[in-house]
C-alpha cells in the first residue's frame, strides 16, 4: 500500500486528512511532537480503515533532528503532507520575540527545514508528492495576524519555488490555502459560517486535488476571489483599514 506522512499529525485538520487518506487506502505515518499522544489516532485509523498507522516523534522547531527523523522512517512515504502550523498571539508577538520567533519558525523555517530533506529524497527517486498546508493569511499582511501571515507568505513562496524545481524531477508539489476552518486553533475566533470550512472539507478537497495533481488549492473556491479582491485594494487605502 502507498504511504502518506503527516507532519503535525495531532491537529484537527491533520486528523481529518489522515482519515481521508486512510479511507483512500493509504498507510499512514503520523508525526508530532509527542508520539505518545498519537496512540488513539493510530488505533482509530487501523480500526476504521484497516490500514497500518505508525507514529513518530517530530518537532518542527528542532531543526537538527529533522534529517535523522526522515532517515529513520522505516518506509519512505509516497506523499508528505506538511500540516503543522502555529497561529500564536499577534499582539504578544509584537512585544515578545519568543512568541514571534515561535510563529516564524514553526510556520516557515521548520517547514522549510523538513521539506528540504524530503524534497531532495523525492528528487533523487524521481517520485513522490509534497503537499503544504499554507494559509490565505500569507497573501496580504494584515495588522491582526501579520507575523503568522508573513511566515505563511514565505511558506507559500517556498512551495511555489519547490514546485518549479521538482517539476523537472517528476515530483509534484501542491499548495493548499484552506481559508477559515473550524479547528481548536480557531476556536476562540468569531468566524463567518458561510466562509468557514470543516476540517473534513479540507481533507476531502486535499485528497481529490492530490489525485488530479492540482498546483494551488483553495478549499472553498470563493476564497480565491476574496483574496483577489483583498490583494487588489490599493495600499494607500488598505493601510487605513482595520483588518
Amino acid at each position, binding site marked *: 500500500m502507498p504511504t502518506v506522512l503527516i507532519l503535525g499529525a*495531532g491537529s*484537527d485538520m491533520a486528523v481529518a486528512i489522515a482519515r481521508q487518506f486512510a479511507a483512500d487506502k493509504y498507510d499512514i505515518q503520523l508525526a508530532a511532537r509527542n508520539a505518545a499522544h498519537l496512540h488513539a489516532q493510530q488505533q482509530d485509523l487501523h480500526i*476504521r480503515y484497516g490500514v497500518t498507522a505508525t507514529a513518530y516523534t517530530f518537532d518542527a522547531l528542532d531543526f537538527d533532528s529533522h534529517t535523522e527523523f526522515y532517515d529513520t522512517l522505516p518506509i519512505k512515504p509516497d506523499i508528505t503532507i506538511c500540516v503543522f502550523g502555529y497561529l500564536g498571539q499577534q499582539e504578544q508577538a509584537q512585544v515578545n520575540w519568543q512568541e514571534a520567533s515561535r510563529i516564524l519558525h514553526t510556520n516557515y523555517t521548520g517547514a522549510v527545514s523538513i521539506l528540504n530533506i524530503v524534497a531532495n529524497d523525492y528528487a533523487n527517486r524521481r517520485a513522490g508528492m509534497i503537499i503544504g498546508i499554507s494559509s490565505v493569511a500569507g497573501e496580504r499582511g494584515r495588522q491582526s495576524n501579520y507575523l503568522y501571515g508573513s511566515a505563511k507568505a514565505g511558506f507559500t513562496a517556498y512551495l511555489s519555488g519547490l514546485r518549479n524545481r521538482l517539476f523537472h524531477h517528476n515530483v509534484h508539489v501542491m499548495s493548499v490555502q484552506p481559508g477559515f476552518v473550524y479547528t481548536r486553533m480557531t476556536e476562540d475566533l468569531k468566524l463567518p459560517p458561510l466562509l468557514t470550512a470543516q476540517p473534513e472539507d479540507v481533507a476531502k478537497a486535499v485528497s481529490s486535488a492530490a489525485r488530479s495533481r492540482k498546483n494551488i488549492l483553495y478549499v472553498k473556491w470563493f476564497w480565491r476571489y476574496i483574496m483577489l479582491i483583498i490583494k487588489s485594494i490599493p495600499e494607500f487605502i488598505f493601510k487605513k483599514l482595520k483588518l
Partner: protein
Amino acid sequence: MQKRLANWGNYPVVSSEESTFTREDQLQELLDRPSTFIARGNGRCYGDASLGVHSISTLKYDKALDFDTELGILECQAGLTLDHILDFIVPKGWFLPVTPGTKFITVGGAVASDVHGKNHHVDGAFSNHIVDMDVITAQGLITCSAQREPDLFWATCGGMGLTGVITRVKFRLKKIDTAYIKQRQIKARNLEEVIRLFEEYRHYTYSVAWIDCLQKGDSFGRSILIVGEHATPEELSAQQRQAPLELPKKKKLTIPFNLPSFVLNTFTVKAFNWLYYAKNTKKEINNVVSYEPFFYPLDAFLHWNRGYGKAGFVQYQFVLPLDQKEGLIAILKRISDKGWGSFLAVLKVFGHQDSLISFPMEGYTLALDFPVRKGLFDFLDELDTLVLQYGGRLYLSKDARMKQEIFWQSYPHVQRFAEIVKQYNGDFRFRSLQSDRLLLTAADQQPEAASTAVPQVSAV
C-alpha cells in the same frame, strides 16, 4: 467562544461558551477553568439537557480505541458517533446492541441518555451492554461498570451528564449475518388492535408502531406496526447475497433552512399511503430492507428538525406501566382532541429495565412532536399530571420544560440519584439548564420525592 446553541428541537436557544478537546489532558485543562460545565455530544437530545454556561463538546474526542472482531467488543472515546461506528462494524458482521431512531448521536450521549431502541423488550437499554467506562468526575477520572463503582455507573447511565464527562466506553456488539432486516408492516384499525398486535408479535426482536393521530371514532389510534429481524443470508435476494454485509449507499438530502411543517416522516407516510390509501386490501407488507431505512428513516433528511420552523418544537415522550392501557388511551385522546401534535406518533412497548434514573420501564412509551406555540407548555403541564397519575414518567433526553415537582414525583429513585450526583459532582460543577430547572443541581432546595420512592436502589 460564546455561541448560540440549541439541541435538536431548536428550543431553547441559549448563549453558551463551547470548547472542544482531543486529548484527556486538554479536557482536564478546560475543567480547571472557573466555570460550570456540561458535556455535549452531537446535540441530538431535543431540549436543554446538554445546554449550560460552558458546554464541553466531545465531538473531537472521537477515536475508536479497540475492536475485538471475534468477541464483538468495541472500545472508543465518547465523542464517536454511531453512524461512524456502523461504517466499520457492519462489514465485519456486527451491529449496535441498541440504537435509537437516529445514528447521529455520540456514544457518550447514548450512555448519558441510556438510549433505547425498537428492541428494548428483548435487549434492554444501552446500559445493559456496557462492559465498562471512564467518567471524569469532580474527583478525577473513575472507571466504572455494573460491578465496579456501581453507584457511579448507574447514576451515569441516563444521568444526563451530571456525574461528569464520560470519556471512554467499552461495550458489546450484536452479531449479524447480513446488513438487512426482514421487515413486516402490519396495519391496525385502531389502538386496541395495535396493542394486541404488539402482544402477538412480541417474539420479534424489533417492533415499533406509528400512529395516525388524526383519526377519530372507531379508527382512533389507527396505526402500522413495524416488526423486524436481522435477515439471514438465505432471506436475501440473489443480488443482495453477493455482498450481504455491504453498507447501504449514502444518500443525503438536507433541509437547508426552516420550513413550514409538512412532509416529515416520508418513509412512514409512504407506508401509510401504501396500506391505507392506495385501495390496498392487503393487511401487511413483508420485505427485506437495508438496516438504514428500518432504523433511521429520518436520518436521510438531514436537519429534518428545521421542518418545524424557527420557533422550534418539543418532542413529548412518556412511558406508562403495562397495566395502564386506559391511561394511554386517555392521554392520546387529549392529544388528538387538542390537535397540536404531529400527524404521527411513535408507540413502543418496553420490557423490564433495572434502572436508577434511566427512562425505560416495562410499559408503553409514546412519542410525538409539538411545534412550540402559545399555550403549549400549559397543555403539556396538564399531560404531565395525567402521566404522573397513571404512574408514568417523561424521557429527560426529550424534555425542555417539565416542572421539577413532576420529575421528582415520577422517577422512583431520584433521591438516591441526587445523592450520588452530589458525591461525584461536589460543588455542582457539572450542571445544565435542565438540571437547574429540575433542581438536581440546586444545593439546598431539592424537593421531597414522592412517598412511593424507594430510597435505596434495590433493583440494581
